[in-house]
């Protein structure tokens, strides 16, 4: 809470710094985000990728894996989903929608599994490798959207805007509430977050992931395949981000995928903002739901701010950075993260298998007040 207040204050300072009145600024921000049905629908739509990425980050984190590769995984999922829709545009909606969503899951899953395997089998720091996978994904996207996947019309016309054609109508995500832009993707994201929670706390796979997150040593002693669990954690995390990518394409008004050369141009930095949402949701998939809605609101509010007061919406990204810093500085989240990080160090050190070099992780799981259903299986 303190983190939110301080971040609020920083937001005010930034508004003053760019020459806008903070009171007007916050009024536009709040009314732009939550001021009516349209705004709420828009906020929910913007929250969707944050929730999926955030839930994925929460899953990875429980296995003591840090996934900074949301951007790349969103792009990979979106590319595979868009390519699938280009390949089989004539499938009926009832088939095509699930098919493109699964394509997104697969694309993002693969993009997550690669750094997972690199960490598990080659001891490559996944924070660095996921960031590098982001940079690779951006170039793959630029290449595909400027070349093989480009709208044939753009080539004919000579305009060559790097984007696909308007993708098959049959793949469009249906609108949930008439007259708004609220689409099925929102519902899918909420279900996916609940599923992430169920997987983590109600299935053997989730038990393995959390065991590895607590103490790789103990997990290995108990016969849990630690390396494979690390790969699964990043693959699941990436799959959720990839699903977000598919939803970004088929839930958008344009119903196409385009690039401005950067990752943010397509993802709206959801891969990074999802980290913020997950941290603010105390790295719990269910708490990430309201937290994503809040940050979705910040994003739509920032768009309104840009429209009304000409304050660039990059403000939201800067504000998110501050929120991250304050949230990780706050005691509760710090304890949670530190216990996981100690387990990480244990994982890194296990090849040498010296018991005294390991730092036993404290079990802070049950002690965290924000834990909604953190019961052991």
């Amino acid at each position: 809470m303190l983190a939110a207040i301080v971040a609020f204050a920083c937001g005010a300072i930034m508004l003053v710094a760019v020459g806008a009145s903070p009171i007007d600024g916050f009024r536009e921000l709040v009314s732009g985000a939550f001021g009516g049905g349209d705004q709420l629908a828009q906020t929910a739509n913007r929250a969707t990728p944050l929730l999926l990425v955030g839930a994925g980050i929460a899953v990875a984190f429980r296995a003591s894996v840090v996934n900074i590769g949301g951007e790349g995984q969103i792009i990979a999922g979106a590319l595979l989903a868009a390519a699938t829709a280009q390949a089989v545009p004539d499938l009926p909606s009832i088939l095509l929608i699930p098919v493109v969503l699964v394509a997104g899951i697969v694309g993002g899953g693969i993009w997550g599994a690669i750094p997972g395997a690199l960490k598990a089998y080659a001891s490559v720091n996944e924070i660095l490798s996921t960031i590098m996978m982001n940079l690779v994904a951006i170039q793959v996207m630029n290449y595909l959207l400027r070349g093989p996947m480009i709208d044939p019309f753009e080539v004919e016309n000579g305009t060559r805007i790097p984007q696909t054609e308007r993708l098959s109508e049959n793949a469009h995500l249906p609108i949930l509430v008439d007259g708004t832009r609220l689409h099925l993707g929102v519902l899918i994201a909420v279900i996916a977050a609940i599923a992430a929670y169920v997987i983590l706390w109600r299935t053997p796979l989730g038990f393995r992931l959390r065991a590895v997150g607590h103490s790789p040593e103990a997990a290995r002693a108990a016969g849990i395949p630690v390396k494979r669990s690390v790969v699964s954690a990043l693959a699941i995390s990436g799959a959720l981000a990839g699903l977000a990518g598919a939803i970004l394409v088929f839930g958008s008004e344009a119903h196409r995928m385009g690039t401005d050369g950067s990752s943010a141009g397509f993802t709206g930095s959801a891969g990074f903002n999802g980290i913020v949402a997950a941290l603010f949701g105390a790295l719990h998939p269910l708490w990430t739901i309201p937290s994503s809605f809040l940050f979705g609101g910040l994003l739509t509010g920032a768009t309104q701010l840009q429209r009304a007061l000409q304050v660039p919406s990059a403000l939201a990204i800067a504000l998110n950075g501050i929120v991250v810093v304050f949230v990780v500085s706050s005691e509760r989240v710090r304890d949670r993260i530190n216990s996981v990080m100690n387990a990480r160090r244990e994982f890194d050190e296990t090849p040498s298998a010296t018991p005294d070099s390991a730092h036993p992780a404290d079990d802070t799981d049950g002690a965290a007040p924000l834990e909604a259903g953190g019961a052991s299986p």
Partner: protein
Amino acid sequence: MSEFFTASVLVATIASAIRLATPYLFAALGEAIGQRSGVLNLGVDGVMLLSAFGSYYTVLKTDNLWFGVAVGMGIGVVMGVIYAVVTVSFHAQQGISGIGIFLFGLGFSDLLFQEQVGTPKPISKLPKIEIPLLSDIPHIGEMLFRHTLMTYIAFLLVPVVTYMLMRTTFGLNIRAVGENPEAADSLGVSVARTRYATIIIGNLFAGIAGTSLVLGLGIFQNNLTNGQGFIAVALVYFGAWRPVGIMGGALLYGLVSATVLQWKVLDIIPTSASDLAAMAPALLTIIVLVVVANRVHAPAALTRDFDR
């Protein structure tokens, strides 16, 4: 391909490799000092962006390059103090708070740029300094002795940082704190003060890296660094935490980037594949991390918080 292997093209490529290596070298040397004391700073890219914008804006308004350099350095120091307070005094987890700093830098530099400048306007660049006599040596002179002051300083810092780390009391303290903070503390070395110092120096270097980047290009745009700060972090692993190794890595990256640029100019890479060629640094980093992982010994207390 044959047109690439002519003396003049190769000399130009190597000269531009050295130029492109400069920001990497500054940022990675700073990061290495921090990591030697057990602090991982993932905010480098954000600090580079903030300093790059600060320098750009100052030069745009005052047309005084040295004023721009000073502003870039000042921003680095300020960000260093912030990061030190957050990670050392508030004990925040280093990896994630660094990502927070990165996001802040990415967003805030873009915000200020759009608000204050809008469309990219070119500024004057740092002048090339030709070293008397040496710059007249055929080929070698053009490759090594016609660079900006920033480039000379970056490479001079390699022996300076090595000496500082290995031969001074301060360097000994840094390494002690990075290997075994408890032992260092029991011998009367202040872990917090040492880490404050290394973090501030590291961020100062990151700031200079951003400044040298923007004053080398003469233009600013959103996300100017495009991940260079993260690659600099990887370079520290590549160089096994030793300045000379880091210099080798920075030169390798400079060479890869310069070669890709040169090949684009010479049409060796078709335009359609230029996006794929732009992946080279990131792919190289992943390969390097795979090769380096487990082969070298990281500071034992890296990313470990210390609380008396």
